[in-house]
């Protein structure tokens, strides 16, 4: 149920945020990696298009939506990183064809 803040045997992997390689550790969430980036926002809202960043980190606020491996509006805080994962920040409302 509880986990250490830092798993000692954590392995380093690479994920891609908007195409840029970023180091991450297995066991951490996409939202955690995003928060360490110089630009911490993960999406802009569909109506006012203001930028949003992960907030609650526990799956309830839905601020952390990102595109993961082509699937949009994934909750970044509930998604553990995988080596080679492609994360994209979302801008405004999604278009249906995307």
């Amino acid at each position, binding site marked *: 149920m509880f986990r250490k803040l830092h798993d000692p045997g954590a392995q380093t992997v690479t994920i891609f945020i908007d195409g840029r390689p970023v180091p991450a550790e297995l066991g951490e969430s996409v939202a955690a990696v995003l928060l360490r980036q110089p630009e911490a926002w993960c999406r802009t809202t*569909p*109506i006012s298009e203001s930028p949003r960043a992960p907030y609650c980190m526990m799956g309830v606020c839905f601020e952390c939506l990102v595109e993961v491996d082509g*699937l*949009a*509006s994934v909750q970044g805080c509930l998604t553990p990183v995988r080596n080679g994962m492609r994360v994209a920040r979302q801008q*405004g*409302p*999604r*278009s*249906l*064809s995307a």
Partner: protein
Amino acid sequence: MRPDIIVIGGGTVGAAIAYGLAKQRQQVLLLDGDDGDFRAARANFGLVWLQGKGLGMPAYQVLTRDSIALWRGFTNEIEAETKIDLAYEQNGGLAFCLGEEGFEKRRHDLMRLHNQRGERAPDWAMLDRSALERLLPKVALGPNVTGASFGRHDGHANPLRLLAALHEALLRHGGGIRHRARVERIEPVGRDFRLILDGETLVAPRIVIAAGLGSPALARQVGLVVPLRPERGQVLVTERLEPFLPLPASGLRQTGEGTVMIGATKDNPGFDVSTTAEAAAGLSRKTIEIVPALAQVRLVRQWAGLRIMTPDGHPIYAQSQSHPGAFVALCHSGVTLAAFHAETLAGAIAAGGLPENLSPFHQRRFDVPQAA
């Protein structure tokens, strides 16, 4: 202050009538129940809809048409009064057809309905697939879509904003609203009605029972037997998307905020508002058949509500014969009929009686003993 009239039930129907009465300079008090009640007004789909309605009951077709004719003016007035945007659009509406049989069946059904009255040119048209594609340039239709019926008068609005605006407008016209004010009993005393609430009694010379599924128990006490059954409807909502669907369809509409509403199912589990995986799967499957790209979109919510159904599916508007001054108003298209309730029906109630053209909606149509 002693009210001239008390409206029981603060859903879309009761609130529209109460607002209309307040505009007629009546002292109105609106009493509403609590969140434990079944509340269709908070579960519905938001269509303001004519096409396909009224088979077997021409008066219902006329009523719906009349209400829609009032909707634009009603919207303008209430928006000006409350500054609440109802998001009402009336650019026509669609019913998608699957397969050649689906297309022919739809044409046949609408023709039958048209011939029931038949005096005017149809206010709908059958669109074949290529006409439909021209109308929906951003939609890649599924292979099985053969076309759609297009109803010129159809439209949609935000039903929650409508409800909020009706409450707000009622207050602005000097009416009162009491929440968590469940009427437990009605006692006729002389020409008045005494309403017994938890720990409190209110008196008024006239009452309107518009308490949705809570109505039969109340109406019985003033001599009106109103047969009702709950019909469950389930709705799905997607995440917000860029506008792609310029017109609402029965069962599929994109709101002003970008979400897509999908629904609603129909079944009869009694007083049960649970959602089912079966409904979610069925609605999703049907939707993807029409717009395959929606398969990639996230659902964010599913809910169920109970429609307020009479045996023939048509509204009940009646004044009690044994207890004049007591009215009942029930229907399952309270959004579509909101303009009629606020303008025409409230006007008639304020004047003291329902006009002859509403007699087909009297509850007595269900009193006739059924032939064996």
